[in-house]
Structure formats: C-alpha cells, structure tokens
C-alpha cells in the first residue's frame, strides 16, 4: 500500500464540471488523503509546517487542477513557492521528497489536437508542464505522465473521472506500472498501464 496524498485546486468549484466530477470520485476512495487546497486556504494563509509534514507522511503526491493560461491556478503556485522550500525539497539537506512520486491531473479547455506544433496551442501539453517536471526532478522525485482530460468544456467528464478513481486506486495499491507511466507522454482513462490487466 502506497500512502497517497491527493490535492485538488479549483478557485471556482461551483462552475467546475470536470474537476468536480473527479473530486467526487476521489472522495469515494478509501485509504488516501484528500485535500481541497482552495477550501483549506481560502485566504492563501498556507501552513508551511503542516503541508511539509503532510508531504513527508506520503509516498505519492497527486496535484489535480484545471489548466489556466498553460499553468496551474495561483494557489497551487503559492503552495509550491512556500512549501517546497530550500532545505526541504531541494538544495542542501533538501532531500525530503526524494524517491516519492509526483502525478499531475490536468484538465484543459483546448482539445488534444490543439496541443501540438501544428495545433493552435502551438506546443505539446508536456512542454507547458515542464516547470512541474523539472521541479519534481530537482526534488529527486519520480514524475509520472500527467493524467489529462482535453476539451474539458465540451466533453462529458464521467469516464475521465471514473478512470481517475481507477488510477489513484492502482497507485495506492501499487498496481500501476510506474515505469510505463513514466515513459509515456500522457495518461488518459483508457490508456492506464495497470499491472495484471494487459
């Protein structure tokens, strides 16, 4: 059993479709820790000590958020800036996250085709997410391919949300092929590399 810590961050939960559906599924899972970042810190008063203790107590960290201007919502950035300190996540003595796993779960308004050199977003989604990838690398963490829901404004999120539940369950139960999840480009609900299923 891996100890799994799931963060969800959405500043306008009442108008959310995709992220809300995902969160509902996650809340039905047993044996994981779930944190709604905007509910926990509505005034951005992030408790650094508490957050670091939380990170220390878990093996797999999942960050779920909608893509806003090719990045994360502001509070996620604030959380990273404050919690992933020098001496904790990186630098001298900053090996507290070493060996842990980081997974992003991202929803985007743009459709999959748009995220390519030919598409109107001009770049691969993974290119936009390189800051997170490098953050994980600097913290000596394992960075998995992000679990992505493209075209979030037009598609029914139900299958994606259920797949998210399966993904987190597999991570918790160590039934996800991490090597495969590390090397692939993105994860979707129908391409999960689960062990013992292929």
């Amino acid at each position, binding site marked *: 059993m891996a100890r799994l810590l799931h963060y969800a961050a*959405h*500043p*306008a*939960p*009442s*108008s959310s479709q995709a992220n809300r559906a995902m969160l509902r599924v996650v809340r039905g899972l047993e044996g994981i820790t779930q944190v*709604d970042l*905007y*509910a*926990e810190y*509505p*005034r951005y008063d992030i408790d650094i000590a508490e957050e670091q203790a939380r990170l220390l107590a878990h093996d797999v960290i999942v960050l779920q958020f909608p893509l*806003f201007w090719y990045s994360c*919502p502001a509070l996620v950035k604030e959380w990273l800036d404050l919690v992933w300190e020098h001496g904790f996540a990186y630098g001298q003595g900053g090996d507290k996250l070493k060996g842990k796993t980081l997974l992003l779960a991202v929803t985007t*308004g743009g*459709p999959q085709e*748009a995220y390519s050199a030919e598409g*109107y977003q001009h770049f691969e989604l993974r290119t936009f997410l390189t800051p997170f990838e490098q953050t994980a690398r600097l913290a000596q963490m394992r960075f998995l391919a992000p679990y992505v829901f493209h075209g979030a*404004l*037009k598609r029914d999120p139900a299958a994606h949300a259920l797949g998210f539940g399966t993904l987190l369950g597999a991570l918790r139960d160590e039934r996800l092929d991490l090597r495969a999840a590390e090397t692939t480009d993105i994860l979707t609900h129908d391409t999960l590399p689960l062990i013992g299923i292929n």
Partner: protein
Amino acid sequence: MSDFLLLAFLFLAAGVAAVPIATALGLGSVLGYLIAGIALSPVLTLLEVDVVSIQHFAEFGVVMMLFLVGQELEPKRLWELRNRLLGLGGLQVAGTTALVAGACIVFGLDWRISLAIGLILAMSSTAIVLQTLGEKGLMRGDGGQASFSVLLFQDIAVIPILALVPLLAIPGAHHAGEDGHGPSMSLVADIEGWQAALVTAGAIALVIAGGMFLTRPLFRYIAKARLREIFVATALAFVVGIALLMTLVGLSPALGTFLAGVVLANSEYRHELESDIDPFRGLLLGLFFMTVGAAINFALLWDELFLILGLTIAVMAAKALVLLILGFGFGLRGSQKYLFGLGLAQAGEFGFVLTSFAVSNFVLPETMAPTLNLIITLSMMLTPGLFIFYERVIRPRFDRPTDRDDDEITEQHPIIIAGHGRYGGIVNRMLLAAGYRTTVLDHSAGQLDMLRTFGINGFYGDATRPDLLTAAGIGEAKLLIVALDDPDQNEAMVHYVHHNHPHVHMIVRAHDRRHVYRLYQAGARDIIRETFDSSVRAGRSAYEALGMHPFEAERLSRAFVDADRHALYELAQVWDPAIPETENPEYIKLARELMTDIELGASGGAFRERTERGWTPPLPQDTEADRQRQTGQRAADPR
C-alpha cells in the same frame, strides 16, 4: 490680600507681556522673563517688595523641574549615566573651583575666601539651562545629556559644599548660627553624625520605597474619584512633601524630587503627573527668572560697571574653558561640545544660596556679597545670548550631513494608543508583537492594572485632555490610535488633534455608520468600524456552514465589504449632520438604491456580477468559434 493680588498681577502681566515677544524674536522664554524682571524692578523697589524672598519661593520651580526631569529618566538610564555624572560633573566642579580660586589667590585674596568663591561660581544654573535646552529641543543630544549630568552632579554636590563652607570660616570670627537660607527646621541638627547619616539614608530609602510601592495604590485610589483637582492636589502634595522631607534631613529638595521622579518613570501615572505639575513648574520658574532680573543692583552696577562686567566675562570664560576641555576629553561630538561649553558657562541660583550661607558663616566678608550676586546675575542674563550664539553661529558650521547627531534618544514613542479596551488593546498587542513601542493612555485604573500583569506599560489619564496628550508626546507622534469607548470622546479627540497636530496619522474607532460620517467631518480619514469586520467574518462563517465552498465564501464576503464601503462613501456625500437620516430625502433615496443592490444581490446587480466574474471559462459555442478562427488564421499564416 490686595498686596498679594497686586504683586501676582504685576508678575503675571510682566511675563505675559515680555515672553511672547522674546520667543517670537527667537530669544527664548528665559531672556523674556529676565527682561520682564528688569522692567519690573523700579516698581518693586517703589513698593518695597522683598524680591529675594520671592526668589526663594520661586526656586521651588527648580525642584518641580527636577521631578519632571527625573520622570523622563528610567533608573536604568540613570545608571548608564553614572560615569558622566561623576566624571564630567566631578571634574567640572573641581576644575572650575580650582581655576577660579587660583585666580583669586593670585589677586591676593585669602585662600579660604578664594576657595569659597570658587565653589560658589562653579555652580551653573539648572533652571536656565534645563529650561532652555528643553525649549530648543537640545536636551536629547549628546551635549544636552552631558549638561544634564553636570547639573545633576552640582545639585548633589551642594550638600557636601554646605557642610564644607563653615569650616572655611576665618578664625576669630563669630559663628552666628543663623543663616538667611539654611533649613529653619531640622531633624538632624542636634544629633550625632552617624545618627544623622542614618536618618538621611532612611529618608532617601523612604522616598524610593514610597515611590515604588505607595504611589500606585494611592494614585489609583485618587483616580477612582475622577476629580481632576484632587489629582492635581495629590500630585502637588507629593512633590512638596518630598521636598519638605529632604529639607528636614538637610538634603537638597531638588535631589529628592528628582529621585522620586526617577522612581515614577515607569509608572502609569507618569503622564498625568507631568501634565498636572508642569504648569506650576512653568509659572514658578518664570517667576524665578523675573526675580533674578528684578534683583539686579543697578546702583552698584553703574558704579563699577567695567570691573563687574570684566569679572563676569572672566568668570564665564574660565567656566567655558574648563567645560570645553572636559567636552573634548569625554569625546562629545561636533557642535555638542560647544553647546556643553557655552550652555553651562554661567553661575547659578545655587550661587546665591551659597553666597548668603558663606556670609552668614563669616567665610566671606559681607561687602563682597552684592558684587558676587551681581556677577552671578549678569552671567545668567548673558546665557540666553550664548545659546543664541551657539544656534546661529556654531551649530551651522557643524551641520554637515556627516556630523548629524545620530545618537539622539527618542524617549517619547511615536505611537500613542488612546483607550486600551477591546479595540485599542488588540491594536496595541499587534504593534507590540511587531516590535513597535507604544504609549498607552487609559482612564480605567482597573484596565491599567490588568495591563501591568501582562507587562504592558500604560498611563493613567483622560486621553481627551490636550495637556495629557501633549505629555504623552503627541507633538512628536507619528501615529495615534483613537480607540476610546465613548464615540463622542473619540470625535472630540479627532477634532482636536486634526486641528492642532495635523501631522499625526489617526486611526479611529467608529461606533457605527453614522459615527463614521461624523468622524470624517471631524477630520479623520482612517476610520474603522468596531464590529464591522467581525460581523463580516460571522457572515462568512454562515456561508460556510450552509455548504458554500470556503474560497467562494471568502470572495463573496470580500465583495460584500467592497460594496458596503462603496455605499458608505456614497452616502457620506449626501449625509447631513443637521438633518436626521430618516428625514433626509436624498439620503433615503440613495440608501435604498445601494442597499437593494447589495441585499438583493442574488437576483442580479453589481454585487453579484463582481462575485461571478472570475475563472469563468468560455461557453462551448464560443470555444468552437475561437477554434475556427484560430485554425483559419494559421492556414493563412505563411510560416
């Protein structure tokens, strides 16, 4: 009775006439008083007034001044001053005495007479110097502090000098046992030396212990009566009582009250005492300076004008020389050593005392006294001129940016909190937590007691009284928190401070919306309603309790605050103190519009729009249109 009234009127009127003119001309109040005294002297001679006895009475102003000076000086600071006190003060008295006495011996005077004259002229004028330093804001600089140390030492030194002088009596002369000045009653006159020492030490211990343990309960008890004049009476009785006790054991009353002041420096009643005593100090000192002016013996002066003027200047030059050497030796910086050297170059009121004492003990020939007194008086008269010389000529030369007196001590804190209740108390705690120093004023003795148990220093008094605000340092304050319980008092205070100390930033506790308008009209700009923020938080908690997401609850309550503040501002424009709101049609109309906007926000309006804007993604049909446009652009793009 009418004699007394006539005299009182004469002195008061002379002071009122001369002092404002002198200060307007930049001469300082002391010179103004001295000139008033000179102008009065013919009238006083005509009325056969005993100027000298008035002067003895007025000397009590010095005693009061030392009490106030003591209050500014915490025991810790006094201890820090000890080296200067003994070093500078001791060397000044010894050096000046030696120099003056030596000169006298050279001119053929008996060594005993010479020594007595040296001691007499070594004293400087506490009254003139402290008054002038305080008035010109020079007290806190290095030179001011050094001057203070010397004056304090001289004040202490008078006691052993009084003991020494009788020993200098010319052999053969009779001891009259009567002096015009010494204590008429004494607890220590007829007892053994060691017993006297014991009584004296006991008296000092009594003053210190009384100041530490008795004053607080006493003043608290008096404060409960809430009668201003009784508090003033207590304060006066306190100072007079200590002076009396000191005189009885043969100590300087100024020293005693100074000690009492130091003991009370940390007391919560300090500012109240200061504002109560200060007017008396000012009046008495003024009277004292006038008597100095009035006591000039013009007949003698004209007779021997050049001799006396020459002697006066010689004495002052000798004193200044000794002081300057000490100033260099003790490392006073820049212009400060000249302030020290010139400021203390006069002889002082203790000189009068010592002269008459020495004459009555047959140390000095009686014929010498008028000349000495004249020299002392003239040197005092010249002192304001020396201060002006320092300010206009010497200081500008040193006033290069690098030479600034950067070691000035700010004894008065730049933050005043008026009212340490539920509102001001929290502000104070926040300021202290951030490392700021505050001066707290409160009229509840109970509240102050509680503060003390938490180690917070507060001062007793009615904060709306201008003189108390002044004593608390409103003149130098940066920030004033107006947080009294009574809305009307807050308003009065805002009004007063806005008009008299416009530089002070005020943060004001408002009772409600209407009070905000009144405070605004009184000149407040930083107004904070006392329960508004907590009510908003309660509303936000209610949102959350009803299942609203905490971040949305936060945003909605912020939008509410914005809308409310907007409404408050708009309504302030039409609010009219003369018309009750319910009868002000314009106000009612606007209030109705604004309130509907907020309270019925759910069904539309500006409030709702503000909260709904934010992280709204485009609608599906919009994204489709966007996509087509963007792919179209790309196709047209030659790259």
